[in-house]
Structures are given as structure tokens and as C-alpha cells.
């Protein structure tokens, strides 16, 4: 079922020439793991923020379950969509547990006590991100990657039907990059919509069910990873000559070298 869609979506910065995004038509279904590729500044984050309703589109409209997103109250959107920003700036030393508990605010309200279900969601999310032993530490004392895991755990605890992540791999160590992709694939298999921006075509090839390529403010490609993540398209997108190598369901790229 289509959870999130947009028609003719466009965005331009006020008082600046040209648009960041133009004529974006998308229909995102539950159960999909959607990867979004694009150069730096291609508008990937802007697209996610438009889909979340953080930004008002200049043209077109975003729909959640077929209803215009602006007609939804903020708290109802939060029960349907969770969001992980590129980086989290910790100002106050809330404990890790409290940060993850804030993910239950859309369900239990601000002042309400946590229900058994809330508690289960929080401890489950802490466990999935390997944060149990950090639970009582202030987030300000954690490293960037650990903090990223806290924000991911909060989004998981939010238990929303759609999860939008802006470069979630930033700052994670290699092990957690691997685990996170597997976890996102698992969440999609559970029937959620997962959409992430990424700079790693190989990972999207291995895990995503659908890959979008954003270039010059438009969707240049949209399809299964086998068709979209190809050496030809990646070479054209990134401006680097690439060769591809398929092995055991994975696809790897390496730079074309002029060897004698």
C-alpha cells in the first residue's frame, strides 16, 4: 500500500535563482527499502525534509496515505513517519534512555507515563542499537557515531510505518554500518517503508529494493538496484570512470585504470 507520495513536487530557495527540486513524482510503498543516490548538493536532504513536512514545497504536494500532508496534525504525522537527521547536535546532557524514550512522545504524549508497550519499544530499540550499557550515560559524553546510534534507536522506538533517514551511516564504525543496513532491510521486511539517502551504491545494490538517482533537481532513475546501480550510470553520475564486478549477489565498483 502506498504510504507516502508526491506529485510535481518542487522547491526553490527564496530570493535565489533556480530550483533545488523540480517536478518530482514518487509513490513510496510499505515494505520498500528505497535508496536515494545523488551528488553533494543534489537535493537529497531537501527531498526528505519535504516528504517529512519540515519544508513547504514551492510547487506540488506531498500525500500521506493519500491525504495532503499539510492537512495532517503534527502528532499524527509523527505516528506514521520517523526521521533520522544527518547529525544530531546534543545541547543538554539527557540520558541515552531519555533520548530514546522521546521517540514514544507521539504515542504516549509528553506528560503521560510510559506504558508497558512504550517500555518494550524503548528497551527493544536500545538493544537493537547495542546501547543497553550506555543507557544511563549523558548523550553529550558519547562519540559522534554512538550518538547517531541513539538517534537511530529513538526512530526505531517511534515504531512508525515509514522511516526516513538522511545519510544514517555517517560516523558509524564499519560493524554498525553493516548491521544498520541489515536492520533497515529487516524493518522493510516487517512491512515498513524505509528510505535513506546514501553515498554508497554498493550497499544499496545489496540491500535496497528500489534505488532513486537525483540529479539536477530531478529524478533521473527509479527502479530495482540491478537496473539502476550500473557502472554506466554511476560513472555518468559521479563523473568517475567505473568498472563493475558482480559476485554472490553483490556488485562492486572499481575505478577504470589505463594499465599497460
Amino acid at each position, binding site marked *: 500500500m502506498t504510504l507516502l507520495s508526491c506529485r510535481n513536487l518542487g522547491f526553490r530557495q527564496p530570493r535565489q535563482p533556480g530550483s533545488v527540486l523540480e517536478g518530482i513524482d514518487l509513490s513510496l510503498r510499505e515494505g520498500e527499502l528505497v535508496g536515494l543516490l545523488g551528488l553533494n548538493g543534489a537535493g537529497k536532504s531537501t527531498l526528505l525534509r519535504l516528504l517529512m513536512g*519540515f519544508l513547504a514545497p514551492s510547487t506540488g504536494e506531498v500525500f500521506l496515505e493519500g491525504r495532503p500532508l499539510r492537512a495532517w496534525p503534527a502528532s499524527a504525522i509523527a505516528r506514521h513517519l520517523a*526521521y533520522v537527521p544527518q547529525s544530531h547536535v546534543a545541547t543538554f*546532557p*539527557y540520558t541515552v534512555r531519555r533520548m530514546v524514550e522521546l521517540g514514544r512522545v*507521539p504515542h504516549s504524549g509528553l506528560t503521560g507515563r510510559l506504558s508497558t508497550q512504550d517500555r518494550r519499544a524503548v528497551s527493544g530499540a536500545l538493544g537493537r542499537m547495542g546501547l543497553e550499557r550506555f543507557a544511563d550515560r549523558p548523550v553529550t559524553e558519547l562519540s559522534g557515531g554512538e550518538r547517531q546510534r541513539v538517534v537511530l534507536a529513538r526512530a526505531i522506538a517511534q515504531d512508525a510505518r515509514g522511516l526516513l533517514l538522511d545519510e544514517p551511516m555517517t560516523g558509524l564504525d564499519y560493524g554498525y554500518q553493516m548491521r544498520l543496513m541489515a536492520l533497515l532491510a529487516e524493518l522493510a521486511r516487517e512491512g515498513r517503508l524505509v528510505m535513506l539517502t546514501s553515498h554508497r551504491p554498493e550497499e544499496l545494490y545489496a540491500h535496497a529494493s528500489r534505488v532513486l538517482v537525483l540529479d539536477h533537481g530531478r529524478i533521473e532513475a527509479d527502479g530495482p538496484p540491478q537496473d539502476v546501480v550500473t557502472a554506466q550510470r554511476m560513472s555518468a553520475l559521479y563523473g568517475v570512470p567505473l568498472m563493475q564486478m558482480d559476485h554472490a549477489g553483490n556488485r562492486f565498483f572499481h575505478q577504470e585504470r589505463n594499465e599497460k
Partner: protein
Amino acid sequence: MIFLRRVSSVVLPRGPAISVRPALIRSLALTGVVLSVVCALCLGRYPLSPLRVFGVFGHLLHLSAGVDPLAQAVVMQARLPRILAALLVGSALSCGGATYQAVFRNPLVSPDLLGVLSGAAFGAALAIVSGGSAFVVQMGAFGGGLLAVGCGLLISRTLPGGGILALLLGGLIGNAIFTALLSLVKYLADPMDQLPAIVNWLLGSLAPSGWRELAWMSGPLLALTTALVVCAPVLDVLSLGDDEARSLGISVRVMRPALIVLATLACAMTISMAGIIGWIGLLVPHVARLLVGAEHRNMMPVTALLGAGGLVLADTCARSLTTGEVPLGIVTQLFGALAFVLVLRRLRGGMA
């Protein structure tokens, strides 16, 4: 890089230093408030024994027959209204400061960020120069404070980008305008009587607080402080940043201005009641965070209690340290700044 880490370790207060349950800390703070009130009732230019103070209340409640007219006059006419005013002003300023710090996501912010102080000072100075009564001066301060913040907010609306940065810049400009206007009023004031009156007012004091002021100020001030304490859980979400707060279902566009308005009203009322009392709004939230941790829903009630008790003690010092009276603003500024050193040392030590 090391420098940056050091700075951030100063700016970012640490979690609970002692892990005690917030409820216990709350009752301890409440006990502290009661003790500080008892101290304040007893101490002063005319010291009273606790027994005589209790005797006054016993007589009021028809528990004892004997009258102690002197003690009754000191307690009921001089000390009690002033102590009640200190409780109200202290808690309102502290909660206002904590709210500002969370809304602006900056623990070093104090309630004068958006120009409420300079505006109130201008309003009061204008009222003094135009020969207004004490009531007119109070209204001038209140109106001036709101006017300045309103100007700051309006200016921030015209700036591109929006968000916290635009608010900060708008506040900075509003502050500058009203500081300049205050200087103009001071320059034009009669140096023989009006200028000293302005300077004296700016120093801040609870001396003019009587039952009449309390009668119409206590209701709104109590309501505003209560609202800030009740809204504290919103601050936990709001302080995560705009996008994250929205993704958790908080309407930033509604909640942020609403909280700023509540905190500003509270501060403007304290200024019109007691003049400018610095450092309470900055220091007390930090102390509360040290005691119960940073979660606003836990720290805000403690902030209110500590602010109330702290200002009662500061005011007791102001009126009993010397034979005359030191303006309260000077006492809070001096002790506040020194106490802040201790708080920061505690934070730094915790980062080791």
C-alpha cells in the same frame, strides 16, 4: 581541536552528579525554601527569635492570646510581603531562564536575550522622568519590556532564513535600540533627582514590595511560573532542534513562540516588581541540572524551588548585611557570578 573540546565541556553541563531520585531532591529543595523563609523572617535590622515569629503566626491563627505588637509589625508589615515577593520573583526568573536556555538550545542564555531588560529599563526610566508614581513606573517597566521583545520578534520576522539565528539577531538589534533609548532618557534626565532615581531603580530591589503590589502581581506571576513548570516536558523535545522536534510531533512554529511569550511575560513582571535582578535566571537552572540532571520535566520544579529559596536568602543578605540596605541586584550579581565559578568547576571536574 582540544580548545574546542574544552569549551564544549564547559558549555555542556554534565548529567546528575549525584544520582538521587528527583522526588527526594524536590522535597529537600522544598525544605530548603521553608528554612530560608524562617531565616528571612527572623533575621534583619531588628532580629527576632523564631519563637516570637511563630508567636505572631500563632496569634493570627487564634492559637495564642498574647500579642507581641512589635514582632507583629516587623513580620506582617515589613518582612512577610517582601519574602513572598522574593519567592515569586525568584521562581519566575529561574523558570524563565531555564525556558530561554532550552528554547534557544544554549545553556549560557539568560532571560534578557531578547531585550526584555533593556526595554523594561527604558520604560521605567521614561516613567520616572515624566514624574509618574511608583505604579506608573511599574507599568512602564512591564510595557517597555514587552515592547522591546515585540520589536525584536518583529525584526527577526523580516530576516531571511528564520529559526533561532533570526530570533537571536532580532533580539540583539532590539536590545541595542532600547539600550540607546535608555541612554537618551538618562542623558535628558534631571541630574539632581531624576537620574539618581533611574540608577537606583536599575539596581533592583524588593524594598518597595508591599501587600498592595502582591495583591495584583502574585496571581499572574504564580500562574506564569506554574505554566512554565507544566510546559517543561515540551522543552525536552524542543531543545533537540527544529526538525527532530517536528518529527516527534511537536509543532515548533506554535510551541516556540508560546514558550518565549510565557517566559518573557514572567520576566517582565518580575522586573516591574523588583527592578533588574541579574544572574538568577542564568545560574539557578545550572544548579538544578547538577542536582537532578538535564531532563526539563525533572529539573523545572527544582529550578522553581531553588530560585525561590535562593532569592529569599539573597534578599535577606541585602537587607541585613549592612546597617543600610544593599540593592538586591548587586547581591545577586556578585554572589551569582561567584557561584557560577563553582558550578563551572563542578562541570569541568566531572568531564575528566
